[in-house]
């Protein structure tokens, strides 16, 4: 990287907000922090690692909750309107970053901020109101208790109709470990229980109105690179056809065809009624229009009409979690359940998967409940009970791992590190399986989306059954994701762009003169720091494992007779990472990455 950088992001500020004392202070981003971690996920993880003592209760005032954006946010870089929430997760106990689209991120950056770090806990419900340089904590007693849509409307009335609201619903208020933060009523920082951390701090919402212009280092060069980057998005079949036409739900039929659509709590990989809940069916029956996040030329978001009202979504993962995972083939009901989760502020992946787990617990006699695969009766009420921690809902609210442990069958929870595994059966794609096992935030499909090369032939088709070379690619994708999340841009750009394109966009926008290799090295540094955080919290190689179910062959479908070989790949993965046999980064690795701990 060059010396003497000149970049607009360097004058963005980090807001430190003490919810305990009400003190608010502003600091500029230290130069080395920016160079080594960019923003977004990297910035948040670095702050968290440096400031959080080990072993604190994630729902205690000791935890930090960090909202952050990146050096590309609110510029002309495509998809650069997202924001990141970083905290210690109450669901996994790991470091956690959760991401959200919409328009909030762009306004936060336009207000002049790179991040907000919430410390402590307020005595009463509050929200943070930011209008450019004005930053104040305001009483939220009137808003507390309301769902996310009502709360959003109330907060816009109280502030500015052009502002953006990120808020929690009843689930966050009631410390549900699967609680999300909702922006624009249906965009979610969904995973890991970040909404519960917000609720534990009595923080109902962050409302922001940013009106400043975001400058870039080289406007002309950025314009040229952006033009090329947009052309690549338009030339790519996934980003120009599949996602804009069907949304992420395009994956239902594809993944089902490969026998990897987890069905009945991952007992099978093929759902007989997949066509009925597919992206194609969603387009024919419910879709009203697409939804584009800030600066996004793809437009994967959906607005659907169900039961007379327009609602957001549903996304592929949600269709899966409330559909095949629970044996349900009613697309209208799935869409309604998704809407319910948005209102209550719940992560649809974990909620659906936990209900699926409860259905199997019931089926096997471990749990006495009315939950049955394929039966939607009373399920909307169950989702509400989760958000309010009522009855069985209180058990479900802690996620599938704790639920299955409580009812004596921990092997029935399909999770890694406590986070429910999403909508791709790992037995059908060996690289993707290793990605699940080694994800720093638990069962996550986005850390290393090897579904791209292993299923979608993007950028090339690789043998999904093969293990050779997969550890190397998992690391490549994990590093790239960490860097993208810190830049901050949408993961879907990855279908069309190589690391070189991200580096070019970043260089033109910020003046940091970096190559694709250096961009990946930033991602590697972030990934290793996250690993250090988790090691410090007591996570070991034992936590880099998939549930035992994935060592049993799938019984049917186009992935039948396959098992996951992620355990066999771990030693190679650790070696290539520069970690010891216990999964800890070696001193040489830390030195190479300038990670002085």
């Amino acid at each position, binding site marked *: 990287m060059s010396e003497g950088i000149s970049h607009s992001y360097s004058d963005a500020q980090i807001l430190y907000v003490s919810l305990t004392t009400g003190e608010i202070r502003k600091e500029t981003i230290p130069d080395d922090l920016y160079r080594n971690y960019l923003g977004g996920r990297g910035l948040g993880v670095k702050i968290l690692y440096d400031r959080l003592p080990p072993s604190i209760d994630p729902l205690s005032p000791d935890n930090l909750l960090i909202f952050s954006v990146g050096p590309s946010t609110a510029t002309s870089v495509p998809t650069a309107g997202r924001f990141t929430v970083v905290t210690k997760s109450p669901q996994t106990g790991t470091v956690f970053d959760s991401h959200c689209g919409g328009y909030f991120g762009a306004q936060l950056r336009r207000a002049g901020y790179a991040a907000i770090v919430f410390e402590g806990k307020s005595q009463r419900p509050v929200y943070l109101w930011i209008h450019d340089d004005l930053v104040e904590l305001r009483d939220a007693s009137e808003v507390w208790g309301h769902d996310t849509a009502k709360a959003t409307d109330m907060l816009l009335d109280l502030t500015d109709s052009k502002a953006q609201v990120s808020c929690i619903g009843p689930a966050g208020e009631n410390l549900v470990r699967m609680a999300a933060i909702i922006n624009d009523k249906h965009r979610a920082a969904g995973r890991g229980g970040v909404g519960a951390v917000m609720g534990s701090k009595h923080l109902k919402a962050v409302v922001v109105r940013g009106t400043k212009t975001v400058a870039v280092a080289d406007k002309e060069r950025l314009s040229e690179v952006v033009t090329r980057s947009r052309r690549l998005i338009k030339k790519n079949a996934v980003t120009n056809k599949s996602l804009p036409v069907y949304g992420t739900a395009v994956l239902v039929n594809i993944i089902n065809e490969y026998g990897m659509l987890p069905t009945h709590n991952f007992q099978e990989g093929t759902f007989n009624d997949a066509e009925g809940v597919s992206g194609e069916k969603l387009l024919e029956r419910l879709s009203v229009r697409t939804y584009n996040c800030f600066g996004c030329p793809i437009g994967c978001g959906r607005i659907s009409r169900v039961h007379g009202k327009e609602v957001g979504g549903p996304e592929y993962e949600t269709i899966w979690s409330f559909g095949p995972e629970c044996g349900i083939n009613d697309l209208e009901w799935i869409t309604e359940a998704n809407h319910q989760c948005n209102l209550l502020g719940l992560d649809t992946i974990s909620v659906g998967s936990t209900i699926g787990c409860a259905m199997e617990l019931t089926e096997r006699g471990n749990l006495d409940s009315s939950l049955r695969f394929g039966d939607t009766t009373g399920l909307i009420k169950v989702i509400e009970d989760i958000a309010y921690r009522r009855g069985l809902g209180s058990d479900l609210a802690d996620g599938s791992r704790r639920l299955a442990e409580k009812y004596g069958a921990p092997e029935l929870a399909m999770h890694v590190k406590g986070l429910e595994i999403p909508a791709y059966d790992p037995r059908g794609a060996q690289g993707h399986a290793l990605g699940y096992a080694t994800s720093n935030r638990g069962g996550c499909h986005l850390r290393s989306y090897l579904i791209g090369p292993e299923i979608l032939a993007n950028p090339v088709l690789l043998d999904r059954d093969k293990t*050779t070379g997969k550890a190397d690619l998992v690391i490549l994708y994990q590093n790239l994701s960490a860097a993208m999340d810190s830049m901050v841009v949408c993961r879907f750009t990855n279908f069309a762009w190589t690391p070189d394109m991200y580096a070019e966009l970043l260089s033109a926008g910020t003046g940091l003169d970096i190559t694709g290799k250096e961009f990946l090295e930033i991602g590697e540094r972030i990934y290793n720091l996250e690993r250090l955080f988790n090691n410090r919290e007591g996570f070991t190689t034992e936590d880099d494992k998939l549930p035992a179910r994935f060592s049993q062959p799938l019984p049917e479908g*186009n992935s039948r007779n396959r098992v996951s070989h992620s355990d066999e790949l771990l030693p190679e993965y650790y070696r290539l990472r520069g970690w010891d046999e216990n999964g800890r980064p070696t001193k040489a690795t830390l030195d190479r990455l300038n990670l002085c701990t």
Partner: protein
Amino acid sequence: MDLTVEKLAKMIDHTVLKADTKRSKVKEICGEAKTYGFYAVCLNSVHIAYAAELLADSDVKICSVVGFPLGSMTSTSKAFEAKEAVTNGAHEIDMVMNVGALRDGNTDFVRSDIEAVVAASGDAHVKVILETGLLIDEQKVEACLICKEAGAHFVKTSTGFGPMGATPHDVRLMRETVGSSMGVKAAGGISTFKDAWRVIEAGADRIGASAGVAIVEDFRWAQYSDSWMEPDKPCWTCPSRKASMAKQPKEVYLWYKQRCVTCEHRDDNVFYD
């Protein structure tokens, strides 16, 4: 293989041959050819004059298909189309061989058909599309030899509209047959840099693809991992896997499938890989 992004681009004929091609698309791919340094643009003959206008100040060559995609029109009409394309600015002609005549064993007609186009094309290089998916290996070899005798400069695998498309097997066979004095162009279904890599390794020195931009841009991934180039299951690139009863003559289809029965990789032909 010592291949760079720039070298790869110089092997690509950036192609658009669809019936619904608008002038804006022609303009787009001509612009991309200049930006990426592709060897040529490959177009239907109706677009050649416009492309010549767009590429007047560049070193990007212009290639026109002729008798496309069936190759079953008269030699006179093929020659006329080729001559007009060259007059309008084409530097290369990609003609479709008369596949039916070859299957009839009418090699004289096949040869004269090609000779007519070669003569009408003047200094322009002529590539002959064999449409390999409609032929068995013996016929591909025969066709290559006829092309060589008829004075063509390249043999080319496929139109992209017929069965199977380009396979490394066919490219290798064609290269072995024509030797180093002729070019071999692989076209049809080449959509990723790994597809391109495979046919180059098999002996192709030109690639026809509508996905030229993706092939070149995505090739940048290669510098970040060797794993992309891990060998695939043998069946993936084998023409026998791609054979289709619906698209091929029955005896051609059965010829391909018969190869599976005695193939050393038969055990790799697993269920839904």
